[in-house]
């Protein structure tokens, strides 16, 4: 059990800087998700925390210990890799016991640890098999078991679910969450899938181009994104955008229609306005007129694509939509659901 303090970590490869001044404080038992598009630096940050790569600047503290210069095996950190990285020439039991063997734990104790982990992850019947005889989901459990057996202070997960098929991914997500609740080990979890990030994390750090865009709880990220990147990255279908100039008295326009939101401090500025699909409500007295271009039913909900003065938008509504392309409708949006960002730097303004 420990806290992790990442202070001022930067990493450059020659002239290219991959991580810029990363600062993160993890509380004991926290489940932090690092999410971002490919190339954002999340895997590099993971490798630095694990000790597989050295940072160009900055420090790492696990609890009170400074682990910045230490080799991977003395850091008391365990890692689950994207490809599971199981040792192909060893059985499942040997795989799980390997880190304990490297620490010279006596054989009897190793067996106890392996059995415990196997029971927890329901892989007891696989202990004598080799990795090539296992399915993807089974291999993943073995990888988690190998990390668990060491009872580390910190867990690192590097996109562990991306190699699984969609249904298995959803099941494993729930299992991982339950596992965390049962063991309470501080965890950093890397993914590019924002749905995983939202469902698993106690806090999420959104990364782009080696910098943290926002560090917050899932709901905070969703309801108050700090910039246009976060607003667009989190949430599916993506947020609807519209560019406009704020009126002389601070009126925020959607297309040419007044949204009803007034922010006098922003008078005259060029802004990007974002509205989430579920916040655009179909209402006969709504301020915006729109024409339906496409209807996408998904069963529990429908996405209705429309064209309006705002441009192309997606609306989200429950159940089946009775619209067909060509229909006209009116939409309204509550003022407090409108996100306003600066048009040039993308920063949140409201």
């Amino acid at each position, binding site marked *: 059990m420990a806290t992790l303090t990442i202070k001022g970590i930067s990493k450059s490869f020659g002239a290219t800087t991959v991580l810029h001044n990363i600062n993160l404080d993890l509380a004991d038992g926290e489940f932090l998700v690092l999410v971002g598009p490919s190339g954002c630096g999340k895997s590099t940050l993971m490798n630095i925390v694990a000790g597989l790569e050295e940072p160009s600047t900055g420090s790492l503290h696990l609890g009170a210990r400074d682990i910045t210069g230490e080799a991977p095996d003395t850091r008391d950190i365990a890692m689950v*890799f994207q490809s599971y990285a199981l040792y*192909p020439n060893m059985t499942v039991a040997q795989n799980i016991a390997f*880190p304990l063997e490297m620490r010279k734990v006596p054989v009897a104790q190793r067996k106890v640890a392996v059995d415990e982990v196997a029971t927890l992850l329901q892989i007891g019947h696989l202990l004598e098999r080799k990795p090539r005889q296992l399915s993807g989901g089974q291999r993943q459990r073995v990888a988690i078991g190998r990390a668990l057996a060491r009872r580390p202070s910190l867990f690192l997960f590097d996109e562990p679910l991306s190699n699984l098929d969609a249904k298995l991914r959803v099941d494993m997500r729930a299992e991982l969450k339950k596992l965390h609740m049962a063991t309470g080990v501080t965890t950093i979890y890397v993914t590019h899938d924002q749905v995983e990030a939202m469902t698993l994390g106690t806090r999420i750090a959104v990364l782009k181009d080696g910098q943290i865009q926002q560090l917050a709880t899932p709901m905070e990220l969703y309801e108050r994104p700090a910039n246009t990147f976060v607003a667009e990255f989190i949430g599916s279908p993506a947020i609807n955008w519209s560019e406009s100039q704020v009126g002389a008295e601070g009126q925020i326009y959607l297309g040419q229609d007044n949204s009803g939101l007034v922010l006098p401090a922003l008078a005259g500025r060029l802004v990007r306005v974002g509205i989430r699909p579920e916040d655009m409500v179909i209402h006969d007295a709504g301020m915006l007129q729109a024409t339906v271009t496409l209807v996408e039913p998904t069963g529990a909900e429908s996405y209705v694509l429309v064209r309006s003065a705002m441009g192309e938008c997606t609306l989200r509504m429950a159940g089946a939509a009775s619209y067909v392309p060509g229909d006209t409708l009116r939409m309204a949006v509550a003022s407090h659901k409108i996100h306003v960002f600066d048009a040039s730097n993308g920063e949140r303004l409201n």
Partner: protein
Amino acid sequence: MKNRWLPALTITPSLVLVGACVYGFIAFTIYLSFTTSTLMPQFELAQEIPYYRLFRLSTFALSAKNLCLFSGLYIGLSLLLGMLMAILIDQKIRGETPFRSIFLYPMALSFIVTGTAWKWILDPSIGFERTVHLMGFPDFVFDWIKDGDMAIYCVVIAAVWQTSGFVMALFLAGLRGVDTEVMNAARVDGAKGWDMYWRIVIPQLGPSFISSFVILAHMAIKSYDLVIALTGGGPGRATWLPSVFVYQYTFTRNEMALGAASAVLMLVAVSIVVIPYVRSELRDKTQA
């Protein structure tokens, strides 16, 4: 497709040529090994099966014994040296390409060239022994190549020099094929240095071992050019191998049936090593 017969037609010449010149000829030679052939092929079956005569011949026993000795040392030393060179080169050294090129160039040479060069290097009157004498150690002796008991080891030396680069290339590819993430996982789990190689990397080199072994074994059984160039089979008959026996008995001593029998035995030896290997290659490739 009306040209359904074209593919079959295209491969037929090869099938005919290989079928006849390889398998047909093998059958022919097998038959000959039961006949009374001496100078020319005879088709009359011998009263006493030539194989029995073969096993009683001291020259054949010597050839077989030499083969076992030679193969064991040759394969073992090539594997060790090749693996060592591969591991050394894999240590992220500077100048990897020149080193690799140096270790591998002997494979481009004919065994005759290799034999010629090593013949004089190992010769006591102008080679290694003499060089050491001139350096001030007049009592140094290294005349293995002239010594009936030791000459076969000279063949081993030259052969290992020639092919350990090949083993190195195979192992290097194997080493590089080990998944980096698995090695990262081992680092996080605490494996370092020797542990890493012994527990994680080397166990995954199985395929490289097998490939090397099969190729080396089949080359050892077929070794002929090197022996002829290096020692001519001598001194006397001290470095005779079955391949030399075949040639000598067929063309010089006019005992074609015995030569044929020896050749057949060579084929059997090669088959034992190669057939399982070919079968597993085929299974792998067709599944890919």
